[in-house]
């Protein structure tokens, strides 16, 4: 089969227009998304989840969400109300953000808190490395001892209730 010049030109035009339309449609998609980002940056399409409690942000492992709260004025040292079916046996208790980050084994949250103002002063805070040991998280325990000046393993007291190391650490009895 032979194709005459006009038919060939028309076919080339069809291919070109088809390719351009395919690419332009995708580019228009970018334009729509970026315009929406500019108009509504808090849309769930662009913004991360917003946390209203440091405890929730730490438990979710959302280090940016936790830092956003610190930036907004939340103290990295004030006790926070925490609650978890296993760790606190569904009771609401007060713990420091650092203790909660260790209890929930959120390594990045621990490092963020240490970098951005968390002080290790109370007995509970000094014993967070022991809590990490009790939870079987040797890496986190080593990190806390290396960067946090927390208790070495030999100075850790045995928890009153080995099945509830967090409650033991913060002195809450069943």
């Amino acid at each position, binding site marked *: *089969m032979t*194709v005459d010049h006009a*038919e*060939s*030109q028309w*076919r*080339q*035009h*069809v*291919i*070109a*227009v*088809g*390719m*351009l339309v*395919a*690419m*332009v449609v*995708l*580019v*228009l*998609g*970018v*334009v729509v*998304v*970026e315009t929406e*980002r500019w108009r509504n940056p808090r849309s*769930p*399409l*662009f*913004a*991360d989840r917003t946390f209203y409690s440091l405890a929730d942000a730490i438990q979710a492992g959302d*280090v*940016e969400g936790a*830092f*956003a709260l610190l*930036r907004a004025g939340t103290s990295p040292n004030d006790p926070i109300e925490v609650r978890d079916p296993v760790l606190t046996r569904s009771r609401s208790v007060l713990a420091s953000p650092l203790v909660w980050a260790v209890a929930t084994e959120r*390594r*990045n949250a621990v*490092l*963020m808190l*240490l*970098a*951005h103002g968390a002080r290790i002063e109370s007995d509970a805070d000094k014993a967070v490395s022991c809590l990490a040991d009790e939870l079987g998280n040797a890496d986190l325990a080593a990190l806390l001892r*290396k*960067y946090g000046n927390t208790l070495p393993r030999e100075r850790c007291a045995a928890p009153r209730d080995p099945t509830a190391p967090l409650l033991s650490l913060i002195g809450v009895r069943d």
Partner: protein
Amino acid sequence: MRISPAESGSKWTAAVLLIVAPVLVTLLVTLWRTPYPVTEAVALFEDVARVGSPARFWVPDTSYYRPLFHSTLWAIWHADSSLDTKLALVKVVHIAPIVLLVVVFVSTVRPRNAREAAAAALATAVLLGSPGLRDNLEIPLSYTAMAMPITVIVWMLMNQARRVWHTTAIVALVLVAIGFKEQGLILIPIVVAAWWMRASGASRSTAVALVTIGVAYVAIRLLWRAKWPLFEQSIGLGFSIVEASDATARFGAFPYFVFAYNSASTIANVLFSEPTSGLFYTIRDIVFNQIQAWRIINLVSSIALTGAIAWWGVSSLKASRGGWTDEARLFVALVIALLCCGILSFDYSRDRLGGMAVVFYALAAFHAVRALAVRLSLASRPLFVSGAVALLTLAAAWEIRAVGTIEWTRRYAHRNEIEWLVELVPRRAEFADRSVYLEIMERMIPQGTQPGAPNPTHYPDWIARTMVPPQ
């Protein structure tokens, strides 16, 4: 009213730039708002802050030699300006070449009709969607990003009518490219080959000058060869990573097989988007039935385009028996660029090390797609229809990859932001004896933690997975 070919070229060039603009501008804005990483950036700034003169960077006593890059950083760092201004200027050094690359690239292909505009738009998507470019977008590592637009300009000059100033301009540009990164060296064999292939803008004097520079460069670098480790970084081998120390122990006695593997990996990455850093992720995913859409799109679109380029290249060579054509020269330049990128990445393979060849790959894509459209227009109707659908799909796939580059960049930005939140404590301890490092790091914390850093778009899964791996 008749439109001259020049006017027509300008019109279609503008049209292609208009198509590219949303992706390019979004990419640039993303880069501009990206926080510097703790890793790499602080140490780089420490290097330039500690020395009173950039002369230190011109002594090639390490395996990495980027004197012009470091001198540029030094000049910015030691200027009488605020930290914010210095950091902004370093970003400009990184971002400006990317704008220049795209604009010069589109101007070089200079489409003159709709068919060429479609091919040019696809070729620009190839440029932006290739791992070789994407991996060079990491701020502030603008080494290859600077050399890539230079490559396009040098190629453009060599294919223009010869002018008196061409030799000086080409030599100066090649020196800048080499000064920013060793990969700039690939321009030397390309210029020599262009001269041998009688490219109109490539002269004997240019070729001789660059060969002299190349020989001198290699000789000077080899003077410090004894200080280089055998393996500088970890290497990907098949499905696993081998750390540099392990690689030295395993392959030290006869490293040439691994060198060849690394070189072939870099070349294959440009051509097929697989392997990545020597690792066959896509094949591994297929073997373990964990297929990711974005990997398949990358692999299939690269295979299809490389096939088209191979067909066009061989056809160009056959057509040039009576004398070299521009297209045959470009195909030879692509082959040389691939080989040289492979050779220069013998020690370890990374996507970014193929960046210089990506420029020629994208240029070749323009010609290959244009030629394919012509060829299809002459085919039987069933072949035309299936070929046209394949080309449309190819164009869409590469455009998705170009858009994906934005999302990858947002992920880099997000990773950098996380670094500023979690890496400070380990670094304060690790670099306690490096006061300059710590001072720079502490001063840079606000730029790393300020609100508004680029965030990956939370597309529905089915869209996100066409561009990036699941988070």
